[in-house]
């Protein structure tokens, strides 16, 4: 296989094309996944911002009933897994799951560690750093985003409950969105890309193979048959037709050479026949 003309011509091309297309497939899929994930995080960040703006007045007035109602209504929306509001010390003040209210969260846990990894917690994080992914107890992929609730002049000046103006972050909002649709979309894109890649490979390698067979391998086979016929010592009937120019030239040269060889052999045998007749005659005398 490696020694034949077909093997030598097709193996490197096949390997290079297949490998390059596969690399492109993986890189393109990684880029698409990155874009889809960014979109998903951006969507979660917008929703978190909407929740913060919706609950702003209720929090300012310390109206826990309205706050709970808003959070409950938003969490009813399709794809929202959870909404929690933590105070500064990490206790759940409001949640879409009432059983979580009053629970303390570990600051070293995922989602908190990004800000709390040093003794002085970070107050600013990029949108991508605020997001985390995990599978919840039901096995659903969740994209959660934690956004800080910043202190504002209205908060520190409010008469109802006082926050010090120096306190930058009052608490955090944690919102989790189901990734089921995103995962399904990515799987669909991956399958379509896989089928597309296979089709490109089949067309490319099939096309190269077909062209090589039509233009190189079959004419070479005809040439091989011609030389095999010549080896048997018989006179060649004709030159194979419809060969590519270069191979046609070789075939014609070989044919002409074979014809000359046959003529010379005939002349030699004729001369030998003429030469031997008198000698035979002489010897018979």
């Amino acid at each position, binding site marked *: 296989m490696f020694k034949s003309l077909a093997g030598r011509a097709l193996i490197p091309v096949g390997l*290079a094309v297949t490998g390059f297309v596969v*690399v492109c497939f993986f890189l393109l899929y990684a880029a698409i996944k*990155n874009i889809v994930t960014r979109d998903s995080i951006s969507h979660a960040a917008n929703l978190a911002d909407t929740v913060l703006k919706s609950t702003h007045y209720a929090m300012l007035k310390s109206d826990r009933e309205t706050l709970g109602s808003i959070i409950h209504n938003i969490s009813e929306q399709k794809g929202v897994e959870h909404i929690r509001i933590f105070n500064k010390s990490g206790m759940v003040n409001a949640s879409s799951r009432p059983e979580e209210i009053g629970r303390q969260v570990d600051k070293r846990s995922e989602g908190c560690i990004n800000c709390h990894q040093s003794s002085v917690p970070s107050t600013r994080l990029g949108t991508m750093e605020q997001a985390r992914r995990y599978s919840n107890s039901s096995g659903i992929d969740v994209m959660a985003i934690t956004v800080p609730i910043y202190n504002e002049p209205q908060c520190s000046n409010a008469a109802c409950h006082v926050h010090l103006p120096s306190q930058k972050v009052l608490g955090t909002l944690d919102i989790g969105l189901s990734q089921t649709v995103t995962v399904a979309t990515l799987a669909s894109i991956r399958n379509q890309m896989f089928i597309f890649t296979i089709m490109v490979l089949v067309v490319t390698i099939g096309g190269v193979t077909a062209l090589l067979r039509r233009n190189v391998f079959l004419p070479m086979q005809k040439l091989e048959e011609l030389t095999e016929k010549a080896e048997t010592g018989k006179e060649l009937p004709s030159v194979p037709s419809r060969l590519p120019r270069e191979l046609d030239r070789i075939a014609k040269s070989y044919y002409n050479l074979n014809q000359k060889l046959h003529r010379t052999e005939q002349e030699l045998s004729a001369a030998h026949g003429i030469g031997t007749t008198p000698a035979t005659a002489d010897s018979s005398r």
Partner: protein
Amino acid sequence: MPQQEDNLTSADSATAEGAVEKRRQELEQEINRLKRFSNRGLWACSTFLIVCMLAWRGFPLLPLPDLIIASLGAPPPPNVISMVLLLYTFSAIILSLSRLMGNIEHKSSFSHVGYLTGFFLFYHIAKALDDNYWAVFGAGITILGVESYRIWSFCSEQITVVSEQLAYISRTGRLPLEEPNSAQLP
């Protein structure tokens, strides 16, 4: 005088025999060298697979990406690394096919293992190795596969040429005629 001529002739033939023997040894050494060289691609592939195993485990011997970022600074974004990987794969394949076409002896396999390890490390530090592992793996297998084939086919061809020369020496006891394309041989 005739005795002197006889001495000269025997000295010449001894020199010629010595040259033939030297050439035979050179050719045998060359065959051994080519046989060793033809395995170079496979050694490079094996080394790359070891690097792949380390990358799969997240380079356990290296410090954590955050520590590397703290000491060396932020790595390039993953999409920039991917663009460079794509360009590198394309160039490496074209270069390898050109060398295959030109029947050029070039020892480049292990340098590719180095470049590919670099890509693994950059993705690892940029925390994007999970998404791009198979891309680097595919690129490595393709480039090293084409390189291995190129080196193997070059060596096979050269071993045939050298073996023919060796057979000529054994058959005739004379130095073989140099072929026009055997300039790379010793």
